């Protein structure tokens, strides 16, 4: 057969056959990644008896949104999401504002000891959060902040700062110094240079850091569990964890709907911004 003239078609077939194992491998990989999520979405439309009697691969009998309604009305999902929003977005805003200003002061401005301060911030990336929970709990208790969402906002802001300061300093380092020096020669004062020259220059980086912090804070469980002692204060993660108890662990439909809502939120964000998210999260890891 090899004596026959090798047509482009033959060559294509042969390449295809040789690469077939790789294709099959990739197909299996994608199935492993995607299947649990497909199962979750299908499950969020199923009724209780379908979970109990139908096989796992069956499609839901109807596509009614009853489970979602039940998750919001009976499960209090709406309250949890609202709490998360109230805790996450102010923290993100503060992290970005304070972190960028600090990054600017540490990288663009020239003064003695800035290297040491940057190292102090960096140390905060390594320390396990468990080290700060108990003293913070005492502080919030003494300040009568327990019972509000303030402990979450304050703790998220502080724990998000080290990585943000470090990343912003890195981004400012990439900006040519001449730009800032030119601005000073033009007579701009330092705050104007920060706000009107520095900020716009790192706009993209700011967006990346915002995404990274959003995922960290939105997905956080440890801090949310520590500082939210009542039902009314639970964030979506802490609330979802207790979804099971509330329904005695057997009301599958609303539970799946609750998980699906939680997943779909991040899914939509990822759908549009996946390249930025991937870049941001992996850049954030070089911190170690």
């Amino acid at each position, binding site marked *: 057969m090899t004596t026959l003239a090798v047509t482009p078609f033959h060559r294509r077939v042969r390449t295809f056959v040789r690469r077939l194992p*790789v294709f099959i491998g990739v197909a299996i990989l994608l199935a492993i990644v995607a299947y649990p999520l497909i199962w979750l979405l299908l499950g969020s439309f199923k009724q209780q008896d379908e979970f109990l009697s139908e096989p796992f691969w069956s499609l839901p009998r109807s596509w009614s949104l009853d489970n979602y309604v039940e998750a919001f009305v009976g499960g209090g999902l709406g309250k949890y999401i609202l709490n998360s929003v109230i805790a996450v977005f102010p923290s993100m805003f503060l992290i970005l504002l304070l972190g960028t200003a600090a990054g600017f002061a540490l990288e663009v401005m020239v003064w003695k000891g800035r290297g040491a301060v940057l190292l*102090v911030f960096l140390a905060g990336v390594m320390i*396990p959060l468990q080290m700060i929970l108990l*003293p913070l709990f005492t502080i919030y208790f003494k300040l009568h902040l327990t019972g509000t969402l303030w402990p979450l906002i304050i703790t998220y802001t502080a724990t998000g700062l080290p990585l943000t300061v470090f990343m912003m300093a890195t981004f400012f380092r990439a900006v040519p110094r001449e730009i800032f020096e030119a601005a000073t020669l033009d007579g701009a004062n330092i705050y104007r240079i920060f706000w009107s020259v520095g900020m716009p220059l790192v706009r993209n980086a700011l967006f990346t850091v915002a995404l990274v912090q959003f995922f960290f804070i939105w997905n956080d469980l440890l801090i949310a569990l520590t500082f939210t002692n009542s039902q009314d204060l639970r964030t979506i993660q802490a609330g*979802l964890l207790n979804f*099971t108890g509330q329904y005695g662990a057997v009301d599958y439909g609303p539970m799946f709907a609750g998980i699906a809502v939680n997943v779909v939120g991040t899914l939509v964000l990822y759908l549009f911004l996946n390249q930025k998210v991937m870049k941001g999260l992996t850049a954030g890891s070089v911190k170690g």
Partner: protein
Amino acid sequence: MERLLGNPRAVLVLLGPALLVYSLVMLVPIVWSLVYTVYEGNAVSGFEFVGIDNFVRFFNDPTALEAVGFTLRYALILTVLQVVVGYALALLYVFFLKKASSLVRTLVFFPVILPTVAVALLFRRFFEAAPTEGPINSIMEFIGLNTFDWFGQPDASFWVILMMDLWRSMGFYAVLLYAGVVEIPEDIIESARIDGAAGWRLVRHIILPLSLPVLLSATIFSINGTLKVFDSVVALTNGGPGTSTTPLTVYMFQTSFSFGQYGYGSTVALMLTVMCLLVTIFIFRASRRDLTRNEK
């Protein structure tokens, strides 16, 4: 100009707020937590000085030692899995899928951004045995095996946590290592190919040594994350059955907030911190020795 960019008042205004928040909410509590280790009590009942009792108790506490064992076992195995699987995926992206790998990369990365709680609750159902059979047990039954209570037995629970965390994180390590592998200069690989290196030999002698730095940083990042595992365990097994899958983080949480023992909780937290530091230093030193040996 230098005076402007070095203006001390401006430094204070720009850096001050961040440094203040960071100091008050992180640095002060870290020191405070160290003080707690020689006390016992809590915010409500008050504190009592106990000296080194908490440390003596830690080393004589079978649950604490079990937690240390679990944490180390989990962190070491998961780190190896994350780095090995991530590296295998990275090689797949670079050398097999090439330019077409972008879509696969993006899809496999997706679980990374999912809330751990959501994933864990989902995997709980996925491996469930009763009252309904999850997909895993249904498939096992279909191919003629007995259904199995994955969460009723320590070893099985341990592996379910590992599988879930690998599922969640492999896309992350794949992209992280991909960035390192793709940076290896094309001409080095090309000249090795001309010298007759291909397949496994090419990977073993050319690509692997050149990706050691990025493998090292991935390993350090991974071990530091896995030693601090909390969400996955709390939402998947809640430390059970019994206390068999309880890492130090969860044990610290329970002693502190369920039993109100701040002193002992802080001691456990300190032990965790020390463990993170020791392991990181150990990997650094081991790798340096390794690198110098390769140079000879």
